């Protein structure tokens, strides 16, 4: 399902216009993203948590030129599904 289908579904369920549901979606996602910048753990309803983690710097070797490079540390966003959701999808066949 893509974003547009999600919006349509949401509009139907809430009984609001497409435009309004798109607004709501965008509003919610924007709120999430704003919070993400300030914190490194963020709940996503009961579906899980978003986590910001720091990946340590590491040395890589270019296999063809054998040059050693130092890759700097970086921050990445992970999603950790809740146990409830995980179990729900485990049984999907």
């Amino acid at each position: 399902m893509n974003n547009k289908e999600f919006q349509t579904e949401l509009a139907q369920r809430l009984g609001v216009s497409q435009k309004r549901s798109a607004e709501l979606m965008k509003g919610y996602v924007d709120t999430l993203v704003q919070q993400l910048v300030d914190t490194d753990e963020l709940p996503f309803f009961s579906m899980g948590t978003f986590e910001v983690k720091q990946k340590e710097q590491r040395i890589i070797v270019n296999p063809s030129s054998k040059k050693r490079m130092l890759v700097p540390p970086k921050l990445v966003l992970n999603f950790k599904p809740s146990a409830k959701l995980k179990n729900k999808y485990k049984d999907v066949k």
Partner: protein
Amino acid sequence: MVKITNTSILSAFRKQVGISKVGEIAFAEAFQSIFEEALLRDKILKISGLGTFKLVPVESRKSVNVNTGEEFEIASHYKLTFTPDVALKDKVNEPLAHLETVELDSDVVVEKVVEEQVIHQNTSDETQEVAHLQDDPLQKLTEQALELKDILADIQGLGEQVEIQQPAEEIENIVLSDQSDLSDLSDLSDHSDSSGSSTSSDQSNLSDSQQKLVSAQDIVAAINREDTAPNSKQSKVWIGVAIILFVGIVGLLVYQNLDFFTSSPKNELNTPIIADTEQSLVDSTIQIETDSILAQELKVDTTEVLESQILVDSSLSIDKTSPIYSEQFPDLFNQKREYTEFVDTVTLNEGSRLTWISLKHLGHKDFWVYIYEANMDVISNPNSIRIGTKLRIPKLPSELIDANNPQTLEYAKYLHDVYVKK
């Protein structure tokens, strides 16, 4: 750090879009159920601004219960993965986005390690202490990264982002200064290399190297004066480190030249070695020490030396090594080493290392220098030997390869420096 809950997110959301509390709850419920159903149906869900959620199949696999040791099978199932949008990914990484991949020059690192050894051998306790401080540049970077992490955590707690740039710039500066130090080092080692080769190549360079020695001594004096000034700030530590390394190199230079002066009367005896390819035997490094008892035992024969000199003249073969003589070591080491008896032959294959062969056959990896000495006719550069080369493992007097005697190890390291620097 304040823990953010669903409630706080939703209240911020309510303010932003202007929705009633009832509507908000309805939205939350609808959102969750659509999310779960969409994933069940399509196995993929894209939410713009956030990313893609995907159900990925995991194949069944065997596992073992760690408590009972029983084998059991983990059934195939789906797991939920999330890939953030590029925009979101960049936003999350914003505090560290300015960091770039740095290329490491491995040669420089190796040189630095060798020079550190020299420092440990030649300088006083005080300088050794400082040399310990000066570790691998990588480790420094890691420390910086940890510092940065701490600072970031603090800043994130306060919700301020502006100051993040500051420590990052510091890191860059340190990286830069590190690199410049390294380049200094390579300059210095070039210098010492060139002078080292000039001393070993020809005696006519003696006056030349004397001059260099004088200038080096001047520099040492100048450095010592600088060194006594108080180094309070951290930035000065770098200068200190550079100075210490320089002192070490100058010390080595002086040391090599000392060899020349002290042994110059004997130089005629001390000269060449021939790799006699016809007999596949190496008349190796010839070192003569007059007072040596052990040397007498091994019957150092001056006529043989003369013969070999004649051979050198007639065959015009190239000297592969210079005699190694040092007053620092006892007479045991400063004697002629002949490699006529061999205990084993090793054929090099890919991944072979002289040090490993040495560890296997001679009991310690530092004794590779003797294998090198015994095989100088087939090894031109100990750092790169052709695959397939057959190496003969020489039979050595047991006191020379006594791994429990620190002096033998020290001497082997000294030889290592001589051969590697050559």
